[in-house]
């Protein structure tokens, strides 16, 4: 099991580094831009007042978005770009980890060896989890030296809370995509279904903020529970976020394992 675990990490190392690098470069860009935005905060505040409240809520904007580094990063980097990179990374990994192997036929190499399907599934799943931890640590905590580089004040506790929130969010995405990867024999289907479901969730979250009569739809969206401003600025994670993300992660991990153990694998 360790062999399969280590080998997938080796095979995915370049892709993982590219995602980490992209995330760090974006973070660097936003941190470098922050002092200019802060200087313009009075004008920004005036501009924000002209927007409808529901719009600001939908896109996670408020005055903190321009007066504090935490507010600025949670709006610019962690509300959209970071989740997008995390989703691409986790869905890409999961699609290749099982369905991609069935599609290419390489899974026969593993299945004809003395390795149970459960161990194969867990080795791939745990490798995905380790990649997620690596991505979270690099893409979030690199903000600390970068902020120091530009002499910007910040709270370390906020980054700790954000890292935890990002980890449980990424774990739920990994489990969702691994579940689809266990069910299907084509990684295209995994990308389409995981990506499609997350796009629908993103739209639901925005629509529910804009239309009062659709407000309850937000409960069906991961993006409602993923609140980086609350984590980074207030150092808090909502209890429902723990419940939803960890619940989805564990339930889909177990269902994915059961499905993979029972299914036919015809390449």
């Amino acid at each position, binding site marked *: 099991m360790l062999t399969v675990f280590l080998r997938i990490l080796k*095979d995915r190392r370049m892709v993982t580094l590219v995602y980490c690098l992209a995330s760090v470069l974006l973070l660097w860009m936003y941190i470098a831009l922050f002092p200019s935005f802060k200087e313009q905060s009075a004008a920004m505040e005036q501009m924000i007042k002209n927007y409808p409240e529901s719009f600001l809520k939908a896109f996670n904007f408020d005055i903190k978005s321009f007066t504090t580094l935490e507010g600025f990063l949670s709006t610019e980097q962690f509300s959209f770009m970071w989740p997008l990179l995390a989703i691409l990374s986790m869905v890409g990994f999961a699609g290749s980890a099982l369905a991609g192997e069935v599609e290419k036929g*390489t899974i026969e*190499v593993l299945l004809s*060896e*003395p390795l149970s399907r459960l161990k194969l599934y867990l080795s791939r799943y745990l490798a995905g989890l380790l990649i997620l931890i690596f991505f979270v640590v690099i893409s979030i905590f690199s903000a600390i030296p970068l902020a120091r580089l530009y002499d910007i004040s910040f709270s370390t506790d906020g980054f700790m809370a954000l890292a935890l929130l990002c980890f449980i969010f990424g774990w739920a995405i990994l489990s969702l995509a691994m579940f689809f990867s266990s069910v299907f024999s084509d990684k295209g289907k995994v990308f389409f279904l995981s990506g499609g479901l997350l796009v629908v969730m993103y739209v639901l979250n925005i629509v529910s903020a804009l239309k009062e009569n659709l407000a309850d739809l937000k409960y069906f969206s991961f993006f409602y529970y993923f609140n980086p401003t609350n984590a980074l600025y207030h150092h808090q994670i909502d209890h429902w976020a723990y419940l939803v993300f960890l619940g989805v992660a564990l339930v889909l991990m177990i269902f994915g394992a059961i499905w993979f153990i*029972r299914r*036919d*694998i015809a390449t």
Partner: protein
Amino acid sequence: MSVIEVSNLKKYFGKTRAVDGLSFEVEKGEIFGFLGPNGAGKTTTIRCLLDFLRPSAGEIKMFGLDSRKHGPEIKKKIGYLSGDVRLYDGWTGEEHLRFLESLRGKKSIGDELAAKLALNTKTKFKALSSGNKQKLGLVLALSFEPELLIMDEPTLGLDPLLQNQIYELLEESQKRGATIFMSSHNLAEVDRLCHRVGIIKEGRLIAIESIQVLKEKRMHVAKVIFSGPFNSQDFLLPNVEIRSQLPDGLILGITGDINPLIQRLAAYPLRELEISYASLEEIFLEFYGGSSQPSQNQNNNLQEIPKLE
């Protein structure tokens, strides 16, 4: 001692019956050929043996153990090669070997086998020719000296030289005590290697025969072009059928011994003579009459299909 025991194996894909009630045994040390036309259920049976597919019904035992419950334990003793080897494109042969060694926790003889087959293990899989890909697949299948080799059309699409190398390695493995279960379309391959064959059609086992019996049933097709006039009646022998008459020759179907025909042909000056094995499909049509039911012994040569208790 039976290495493989298959009892009433069924595999359905929805309403399609890919395998429908197969029962057979493979004894230790024998090379068992699994013959049948495309779509007969050969690959499905092999995938059930290896637990890639879960049977709809029936039981598979290998080395006396249930193949599903004891999969990892059984697979320690198995080497597998498919006719369409698909390995990791970005890995070299050496990386594949080291990976499997690490997975099995023991040293392999892969490097020696690769050297014997003149296979460069430093090249990435995607850069190998189809023949070298198949060589690498064979090296991986044999590298832990398995007690049972399962092969799904192992020489499909390979040139005769490489086919021969593979046959030699398989014969060496069998002499070492390995049991080999291989599916094939190729009658010449089966003739050379196998001790017994199971013939499958439409998911059902039609017969299990010793290779000797199959050889006696062997059919040839001869295309004869004469240099001058000829009398087709001269070739109406008991085991020869005139399939078609060409302007300057004949196409003949021969069942069994070809020598009587050769003697008749020797009386004529020939411009061209081509004798080839009949396809398995032709043999099936000749001997099994297109039926998917187990055949009655047409010339009292068929062995009884083994019954499992």
